Structure formats: C-alpha cells, structure tokens
C-alpha cells in the first residue's frame, strides 16, 4: 500500500518571537485571545511540526483562555491541542472545558517505585525478573485483567480511584498520599459515564495496554541535585521500577463520546471551532459539567489501574526477592483537566487547567504535596523509550509562574509508526538492546519496531530544555534494564 504524508512540514522559526533561549512567543493575531508560548531550545523548535504552531494558535482562540496557550519542549502534532499543550480557562470569562484538550487516554501517567534492590541483585537474576514481570502484568491488545468488575464495583472504582483499589487489598495505604489527588479525584459521577465505556473497562483493570505504555526496571545512573534526590529517596545505582499506563478502554470511550457531543453542540453555545478536534463546551454548561464528572471518573480509573498494576508488580518481584517491598515515590497524570488555583495579575483565580501530554509540576511549598515532599517540590517523572533514559525532575517555584506548574511528559515521537516498521524489525531491535544489557518482553515484535528508540526525539534534549526553561529541575537520570511493552 502506498502512502502519502501529512503534517510533515517543519515549523518556521521566523514566525516566533525569541524571548529567551528556551522561550518563544507567538503574537496574538487572527482571533487569538492570548499569545502562544513555546518552551524549547532552538534545535527542538526547528524539529517541531508546523502543525504544532497551528494547534498552539488554535487553542489560543478558545473562549475564556487565560494568559497564554503553552507548548512544552516535547510538543508534537496532536488532536486539536498539541501533545505537550497546556491551557487554562476561567469559568467567569466564559471559559471552556475541552474533551479534545484532555485526549483519549484520560489520566495516562507514570509512577515510579523504589525497590531497595542493588544492581548486583537485579543483574544476577535479570532474565528471571523480566520473565516473571511479563508473566504477572497483562500487556498488549487482547489481554485481560485478573478482575471482572460488576456494575456496583465499577461505580465504586470510578468514585474511589486508587483508594478503591487499596480498600480491596490491591495496594498500600501509604501509596495514596504520593498520588495526585491523594489517589481519589473528587467529583466523579458514574452516571455520566456510558454503559459502552463501562463495558470496555470491565475486564481491563490492572492491564498495561499497548503502544507507548510500559513497565521498566531502571538504574539511577546520574544524580544532579543531591539534596532533593535525598528527599525523593533517590541515590546513584538505585534500582527503580516505573509504570506508564492510563485509563484503558473506559477513558478512550469517554473521550470518543464527548468529543462528538461537544463538537456537535459547540454551535449551540456560540462557539466556532477552529478545528473540530478542539471540541469543547462552556465549563458552566450542562455538557461541560457532565464531561467533567465523567472525566474525573476516568482519572480515578487510571489511578486504580496503576495501583493494581503496582500490586501485581509487587507480587511478581516477591517471587524472586521474597523480603522485598516496593514503595511508591510518586504518581503523575498527563492527560487531564483540573480545577486549580493560580495567580493571575496578582489575584488568585480558580482555573480549569488542561494538560494534554504534559505533567503537573508543582513547586516547593505546594499544599497538595505530602509532608515528605513539600519542601522539595513535586516529583516530575519523565519517561524515555525502550533504549533510552528516563528522568526524575522536581517542580520549581518558577514553574508555577511559567505555565501553571507544568512540564513536559516524555520524549515525543519524531517518526510515524509506519516509517518505523519500514526501517526496523522487532527482533533486531530486541537483540540490539539485549547487547546493551536491556531485556525487552512484549507480545508483539511489530509493536517493538513501532516503538524503537530512534522513532522518538532525544529525551535528553527535551529534559534539558525543560530544566533550562525553568519548568522543572533535573534531579536524576535512569537507564532501563528491563522493559515490558504492551
């Protein structure tokens, strides 16, 4: 089958106003209510798609947007919003909530666990550990969870999130304070979630999913800030486990359904959509409120899902290291819209902050952080790819001023899946990584080719740009030893 390309044109840097080496501004013209701000190095900008520019501008045209339409250093062409897009809306100014601005994989996120294991302990059983993790964690298309949720339990899960999982013995109570919203997003209403969405989820609790989702065993190879690393419990040569997954079929179905109903109802609310994918509704409208209540349920689903995957990981690791227990460092969500208080022109405002493929990165002193982390700032967990590093960063005071306390979320693709499968074979990628000491386990060789490390931007550049821009501070670098891909 032949192919055509779309959206492969690169951004014209001459259209941007250089504010600093890591901050670029798009002037508000042609119906933009606010400017666009892109946080990135010149090299990252030059590699960005022209579509990112258009999407940053389109978001700036939505009603009630406050300050600016932001793009993080890993921004790439998304749906309506760029992936790596951040925007806040003021309900008092007719602000909107956008299903497209949250995305399909609602509350997809990353959590990192301390293992307390030494490099030697892991490397002496590396293959066994890879196999036992692959056996315990359902991954890939067609996999099902170990639970089947009936209606009552489904509703309890949608209201309770990770707290629901912990109450059923599927997680540790101590985990909860280290999850955004203390593991339970308030205000979820299962009545606003369709039977179709629930049907898609009933056999999927505790599954990893596929695509870019993974579970990784990682080694800390560099520490940049000893003081904060110590507060996070991170030291050189530590072994950590990171899990990247989301709200599974439930979130996808909610995204699909509200995208349509918001696209269709936009004109009833007097909203002209610059792009149908920006489907949105006034926060105060009936559909806006329904979406928020459903999306909160999907956030809880993602939090419960990561909690259960953690529970399974703990069981798996105990098979080889019976005395081991995995403690949670932190859990971050990427695709969300949350009501937060931020300073705007010296006044505290209630804003609905959309982060699409962006991580919340609250600075030191934030009241939502647990005591143990409050002084250090929020851990910001940035995933790499199968063969490349991941990073732990910390939110900064500056990040609160720059983009509502937000940072990048990962490397971001630089190549389509199609192109990746033409260039590489999964088996070869697995072997190359094994030669470098990284073991991959996946149900699909083609999936491995599509997720090949070289199909992504250099995560090192993205993280450096986030650090230099002041969005968050680099704390530690981790390299993979084992990767379970969905």
């Amino acid at each position: 089958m032949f192919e055509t390309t779309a959206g492969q044109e690169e951004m014209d840097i001459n259209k941007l106003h250089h504010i600093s080496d890591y901050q670029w501004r798009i002037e508000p013209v042609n119906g933009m209510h606010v400017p666009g701000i892109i946080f990135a190095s010149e090299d990252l900008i030059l590699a960005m798609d022209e579509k990112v520019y258009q999407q940053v501008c389109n978001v700036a045209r939505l009603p009630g947007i406050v300050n600016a339409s932001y793009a993080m250093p890993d921004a790439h062409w998304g749906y309506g919003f760029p992936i790596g897009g951040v925007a806040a809306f003021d309900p008092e100014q007719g602000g909107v909530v956008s299903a497209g601005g949250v995305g399909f994989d609602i509350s997809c996120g990353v959590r990192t666990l301390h293992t307390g294991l030494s490099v030697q302990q892991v490397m002496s059983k590396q293959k066994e550990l890879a196999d036992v993790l692959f056996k315990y964690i359902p991954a890939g298309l067609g996999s099902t969870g170990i639970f089947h949720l009936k209606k009552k339990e489904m509703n309890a899960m949608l209201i309770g999130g990770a707290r629901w999982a912990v109450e059923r013995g599927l997680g540790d109570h101590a985990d909860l304070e280290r999850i955004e919203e203390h593991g339970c997003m308030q205000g979820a209403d299962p009545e606003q979630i369709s039977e179709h969405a629930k049907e898609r989820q009933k056999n999927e609790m505790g599954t990893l999913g596929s695509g870019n989702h993974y579970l990784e065993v990682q080694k800390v190879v560099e520490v940049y800030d000893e003081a904060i690393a110590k507060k996070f419990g991170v030291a050189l040569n530590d072994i950590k486990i990171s899990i990247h997954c989301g709200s599974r079929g439930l979130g996808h179905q909610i995204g699909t359904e509200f995208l349509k109903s918001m696209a269709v109802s936009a004109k009833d609310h007097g909203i002209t959509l610059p792009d149908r994918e920006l489907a949105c509704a006034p926060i105060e409208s009936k559909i806006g409120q329904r979406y928020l209540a459903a999306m909160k349920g999907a956030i809880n689903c993602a939090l419960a899902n990561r909690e259960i995957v953690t529970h399974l990981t703990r069981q798996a690791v105990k098979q080889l290291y019976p005395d081991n227990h995995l403690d949670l460092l932190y859990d971050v969500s990427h695709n969300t819209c949350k009501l937060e208080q931020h300073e705007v022109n010296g006044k505290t405002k209630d804003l609905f902050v959309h982060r699409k493929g962006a991580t919340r990165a609250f600075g030191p002193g934030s009241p939502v952080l647990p005591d143990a982390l409050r002084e250090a700032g929020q851990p910001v967990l940035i995933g790499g790819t199968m063969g490349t590093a991941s990073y732990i960063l910390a939110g900064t005071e500056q990040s609160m001023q720059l983009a509502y306390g937000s940072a990048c979320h990962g490397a971001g693709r630089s190549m389509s899946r199609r192109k990746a499968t033409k260039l590489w074979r999964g088996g070869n990628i697995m072997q190359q990584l094994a030669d470098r000491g990284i073991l991959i386990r996946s149900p699909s060789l083609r999936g491995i080719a599509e997720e090949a490390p070289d199909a992504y931007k250099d995560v090192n550049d993205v993280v450096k740009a986030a650090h230099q821009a002041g969005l968050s501070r680099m704390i530690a670098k981790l390299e993979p030893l084992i990767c379970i891909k969905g």
Partner: protein
Amino acid sequence: MITPHWQHFEHKADIGVRGFGNEPAEAFEQAALAMSAIITDLSLIEPSEEINITCEEAAQELLRADWLNALVFEMATRKMLFSRFEVSIEDGLLKARVWGQPINVKRHQPAVEIKGATYTELAIYQSQGQWVAQCVVDV
C-alpha cells in the same frame, strides 16, 4: 469503476486510514480494512465469525468516525479482529456485516490497540470518480 483499496497516511504520533471506493459505503469498508491493518497483517485474520453493526448519524463525516469507533468498541469488548466488511448506507443509517475472529496473540502479534477514531483529517469526498473516506486513529 475503480478497484476499491485502502492506504495508510502518516501522522507523527499515530496513523491515518484512507479508504477508496465507488460509493461511500465501499470507501467505509476499505477504511475499516486499513484500520485492522494497523493492528496486524490482514491475511492473518480469518473471517470466520460474523457480527452486525448499526450506526445512525445524519452528518456523513461524523458517521464515518462513528463507524470506525463502533468497530473499535466491538474489537475491544469481543476481543476480536475483523478482516471482511459489508456496509450499506441509507439516509444516515449505516448497517454492516462484519467478519473476523478472536484475537490470538501468538498468531496475530497485535502491534497496537486502537483507542479511537479521531476528527483529525476526517473527511469524506468525491475525487476523480471515486469516494475517499479518511481520518487519523489514535493508537
């Protein structure tokens, strides 16, 4: 008359599906084939079990997305893959007979799970005597 066919088009994070046919229904069938081909090689999917799908939507473009999303739902809940489609469309009512088989991970080596059909690059149009139906799907 053209030979109905499909193609993928590039999107950095995801992938686009495009179906070509002599009428919209045929283009919809081809777009569905293109979507299955994102997951696995079509020749590996035995069209041994039949299911029926109905969608109703007056706007043809939205019907196009509804159709693919109905397939995503059936794939996800039945744990099946599909490789043969017969679609008819009349006054915004789409009726389809769809054939496929349960997912077998060893056989199909499914590369990705499809989250949903998006409105990005969503279009249905007539060009040079053929119907084209396309959109980007989120994987």
